[in-house]
């Protein structure tokens, strides 16, 4: 009896010890992720003079908004915001429309060519023409130096379509038949009955698509030459490169270099600001999208 109780207590101790160890590892990992961001925020609010004396500190020694005001005066970040909001909104609507229509079409009854078309779509997940043919294709379509060249190729993902399709497939066919008897046509069934039933999944993929557009950088860098069409990420890249160049050229003039570092960090914060603000509230939708995908796999 006593022995049994002892054994129980022992296993309990072991268990709490295990939990403490797990918590320690997880907390350390969380700090590893948070600290660089915190460091970045501190530097962006540090006055250039104070940064020179204390390049690393736990809080801004001399709180200042100089970096941000310099950044806003330069103007480029405002242009970047306008263009990025434009491609994010337009692109998300465009991408979701195509994805939802395609997914729904593949989820319904049989039709001639269904299997072949689906295979052709799947194949694009595993094989692509690559960077240069894509560039020449966009060039041929006269999409160089336009935001549409950035918007049109992005936004539709085969993976999203497949997950959405299995979502639609789960809606019982009786629902559709009942609506048909009530005189609803195909379009009404699609828009008024099928879409609302997939609300959560649609919200998830809308967010994914929006984030993809917000973070898009490669094609805007390749395609856009005009300053007034630059997106936020290309503006950020330019600021960072400029900072690097500044510190190379003015190696004797420390003030320029130091100012650049603060501005650079302020630009980083400005670029991730919307995601930083919205993410904690939208997290459950993002997680849901992946979890659904895992189950459907």
């Amino acid at each position, binding site marked *: 009896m006593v022995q049994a109780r002892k054994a129980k207590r022992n296993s309990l101790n072991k268990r709490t010890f295990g939990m403490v160890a797990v918590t320690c590892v997880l907390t350390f990992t969380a700090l590893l992720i948070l600290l660089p*961001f915190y460091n970045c925020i501190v530097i962006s609010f540090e006055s250039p003079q104070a940064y020179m004396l204390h390049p690393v500190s736990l809080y801004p020694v001399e709180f200042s908004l100089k970096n941000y005001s310099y950044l806003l005066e330069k103007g480029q970040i405002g242009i970047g915001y306008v263009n990025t909001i434009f491609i994010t909104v337009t692109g998300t609507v465009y991408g979701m429309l195509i994805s939802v229509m395609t997914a729904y079409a593949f989820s319904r009854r049989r039709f001639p060519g269904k299997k072949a078309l689906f295979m052709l779509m799947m194949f694009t997940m595993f094989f692509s023409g690559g960077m240069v043919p894509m560039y020449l294709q966009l060039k041929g379509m006269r999409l160089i130096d336009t935001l549409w060249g950035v918007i049109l190729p992005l936004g539709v993902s085969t993976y999203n379509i497949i997950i959405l399709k299995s979502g639609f497939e789960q809606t019982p066919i009786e629902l559709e038949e009942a609506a048909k008897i009530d005189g609803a046509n195909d379009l009404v069934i699609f828009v008024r009955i099928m879409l609302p039933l997939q609300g959560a999944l649609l919200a998830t993929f809308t967010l994914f698509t929006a984030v993809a557009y917000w973070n898009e950088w490669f094609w805007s860098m390749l395609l856009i030459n005009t300053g007034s069409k630059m997106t936020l990420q290309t503006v950020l890249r330019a600021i960072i490169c400029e900072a690097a160049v500044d510190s190379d050229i003015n190696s004797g003039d420390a003030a320029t270099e130091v100012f650049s*570092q603060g501005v650079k960090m302020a630009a980083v914060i400005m670029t991730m600001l919307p995601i930083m603000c919205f993410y904690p509230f939208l997290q459950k939708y993002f997680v849901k999208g992946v979890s659904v995908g895992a189950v459907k796999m």
Partner: protein
Amino acid sequence: MNGERQLSASGVTGIWRRLGREIWDARFIYLLLLPGILYFAIFHYGPMSGLMLAFKKFNARLGIWGSEWIGLKNFERIFATPAALSAIRNTFEINISRLIFQFPVPIFLALLLNEMRGTRLKRVYQTVYTFPHFLSWIVVSSVLLDFMSNGGAVNTVLVALGGNRVNFLSDTSLFRPILYFTHNWKEMGWNAIIYMAAIAGIDPSLYEAATVDGATKAKQVWHITLPGIKQTIITLFILEVGRTMNAGFEQIFYMQNAAVKPVSEILDTYIYTITFQSTPSYGFSTAVGMFKAVINLAMLVIANRVVKSLNGSGMFG
């Protein structure tokens, strides 16, 4: 005889008529599919047809279709170009190391997070871990490179603890470990979610039975959790192998500098450099890209085959 022929002829027209009716009945479906078909034709199969450039000498005046065929010359050139060969080797090395140093990390993380099930703390951790996934590599590399720079926080702490400054960013032997570390930093939390969803799908009665039988936590993980998420691990592994020749363009593009180029130049950065930063030879660039895409596809098929023969089922059933 004559009647027989008539019969078969009317049978053929009957098939066509039935097909016509089926297509007409599904007209709404085709209408819905139209934008998607256009999208995939223009932005996927269009560029794929551009792959013929790999077998041509590109002439801007004549265009892709009009340019002269030169057979496999572009591919021969890949194997005669030391920079291309070095990029191929780097790509392979980096990606195999990624399978070793990156692939298992989210699985461990998911197992650990699973122990915190039901607590508020778990949600906090999850929010923190998944957040960097939603930032671009420019943002992430700026944040991390500053943190690890010569005058940055890490080096300041190192010096304060009595150590020496480490030149993290331009040391060729540190570049690749930093690559794997920063990738884990950005993506492990997000990739762990898939595994956590899979773990959540395991029948809880299995754990109850194991606890009654006196199985330790470690044994439960080994005999219940891991087998339960085996299929998920396999699928993600095959997909990862299918990306063998994509070593992570954006990450490397931002993090590399002239000092580490010998160990950091991968096929994608190489294609970018020869195409957009010097006099381009579109045919050659396309050939390098195609070489990459074909190997990826082959690796995917091979991995699926191997797994299928070992396991009974691969990714595609």
